[in-house]
């Protein structure tokens, strides 16, 4: 378990991070969401030891993080960086060897991983000859090749086409399934929503929401329901404790004052005719995000 507690970082007068605390659990994908300048990259760089916090600490499995621990982390920096004139395979092999793998094993791992990421045809090309999207894939390979137990990825999906997003998502899910703790930031809220198990929302240097995706959704769910029934559902607005949000023939979306009020709608609807669907509506991540950062 990677644990951040009370991290503070100040640049001059500006407090970039204020009492940032959250956990990244092994075997789970943790999405790190926030606007530009919210403090995501600063937080990640502090975890990697590239920046020193003014206060607070980062621990791994209950011990303060050491330089040796950090060297086992997989890291994808915000600003991408590989040697432009090195060949793709050679580059990833080099990084695997820096992490201590003998040449043969490093080569086998790099080849397999690059193949999995769709770069199997480009192994002998120079990094600079790749398109930006493919450089991004190579960058992901650089973070993953030594099979790290902790992965810190700054915007791993930016610049990828939808197919590549699926490939990378798949790879990250595999790593989590094997027990890695994965923290990744992203602006693509739909991807985060689909992919992550846990969520951390940051704004203005403070953590605004933090927990499992489902718990967050439940916590931010109002009592909004969707009803799809045969016949006209105009009667819904006359019921007490109900406020209709949208309405069209047999379709209605409404907010209920209480659970009982909602159940009254369902009973009435069944009396009135066939009910195709009646379900509470979960807020999307985008809605939760807007709500908590205000």
């Amino acid at each position: 378990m990677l644990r951040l507690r009370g991290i503070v970082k100040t640049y001059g007068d500006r407090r970039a991070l204020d009492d940032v605390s959250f956990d990244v659990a092994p075997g789970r994908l943790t999405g790190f969401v926030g606007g530009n300048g919210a403090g995501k990259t600063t937080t990640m760089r502090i975890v990697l030891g590239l920046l020193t916090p003014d206060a607070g600490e980062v621990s791994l499995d209950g011990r303060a993080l050491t330089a040796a621990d950090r060297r086992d982390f997989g890291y994808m920096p915000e600003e991408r960086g590989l040697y432009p004139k090195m060949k793709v395979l050679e580059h990833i092999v080099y990084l695997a060897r820096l992490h201590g793998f003998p040449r043969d094993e490093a080569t086998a791992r790099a080849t397999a991983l690059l193949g999995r990421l769709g770069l199997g045809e480009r192994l002998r090309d120079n990094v600079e000859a790749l398109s930006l999207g493919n450089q991004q894939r190579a960058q992901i390979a650089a973070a993953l090749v030594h099979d790290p137990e902790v992965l810190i990825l700054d915007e791993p999906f930016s610049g990828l086409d939808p197919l590549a997003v699926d490939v990378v998502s798949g790879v990250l899910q595999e790593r989590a399934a094997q027990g890695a703790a994965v923290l990744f930031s992203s602006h693509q809220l739909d991807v985060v929503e689909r992919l992550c198990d846990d969520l951390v929302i940051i704004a203005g240097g403070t953590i605004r929401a933090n927990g499992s995706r489902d718990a967050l959704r439940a916590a931010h769910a109002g009592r909004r329901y969707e009803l799809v029934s045969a016949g006209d559902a105009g009667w819904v607005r006359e019921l007490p404790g109900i406020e209709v949000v949208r309405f069209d023939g047999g379709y209605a979306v409404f907010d209920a004052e209480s659970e009982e009020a909602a159940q009254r709608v369902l009973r009435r609807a069944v009396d009135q005719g066939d009910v195709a669907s009646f379900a509470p509506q979960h807020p999307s991540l985008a809605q939760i995000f807007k709500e908590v950062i205000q």
Partner: protein
Amino acid sequence: MSATAPRRRSVEVSPTQATWLVAEREIGSKLRSRTFVVSSILLVLIALAAVLWGGFSAGREEAIEVAAPADAAAQLQEVPGVEVVDVADRAAAERLVRDGEVEAAVVVDPGSPVGLTIVADSEVPAGLQQALAVQPEVELLDPDAMNPLIRYFVAFGFGIVFFMAAMTFGATIAASVVEEKQTRVVEILISAIPTRVLLAGKVLGNTALAMGQILSLVTVAVLGLVITGQTELLAGLGAPVVWFAVFFLFGFILAAALFAATGAMVSRQEDIGSTTGPVTYLVMAPYLIVVFFNDNPVVMTVMSYVPFSAPVGMPVRLFFGEAQWWEPLLSLGIMLATCAAVIALGARIYENSLLRTGGRVRLREALAG
């Protein structure tokens, strides 16, 4: 890795191993650069050509072909630089001269002060004239003192080789440090290995390349001297050249650590000059000093002890036999101590500057951390 692959933790890599890996990459990427390979080959060829040309032009004066009848030929036997073509008589000798087969003819002439007369076609053969002239004996009071021209060339040679190698590879190190910073690959590298290991690997790799170039130049120079038969000069150069190689090694490490450190202080290739400038002057200074002051014993002695100029100053003094046997050892000791101090300082600047991107890092900040 697929989900079925066995999980294996990466093993801790030792600093030595990591240093070698970094050095290996530095060397590999340089050897694959066509510019580097071509310019190195050119440099070696130019050096070879210079040594061969020097050697052959020195040896060319030797054979002046001279036709002489038997009586004159007997007297010419002892004269150096003259090759005698035997002819029957004066008429035959003159015929050869007219035909251009020989440069001149020499015949016995009792009327001449040396007893010989030179017969030439249309030009006075000055070389032959001098060879046959009677000259007073010359006694030198300091027979070991070297020709000032040789002194200049030897000093110049050590100076330019050190200057060029230190500049070429020093600039390479600085550029590659900035490249890593500019492309941000440095963040990935130092999240995998300690900063000092990265620095050590870069210095080691480039030192190996520079030494490789120096050694190939030395090999070529020795080959050239052997081919052209200048073994005497070679014998005199042997020990100073070995000392030069040793001093060069540490002098280069010194310069390389400083180039890496000052390179790390900027974030863009365009800005390199603003921080590496002083280091450039440091490696240029010994070359300029040796060119202007190679005949000033005080300057040369001081120079042979100052760490930056010792790689040039000490071998020159050794070549001319002006240094005691213990002097290079003392100078080397000073050099090693300076090296250790400068590497510590350079590593500190490098560590503190590497992750600061944006503007130029001030020296005070880089040292304070």
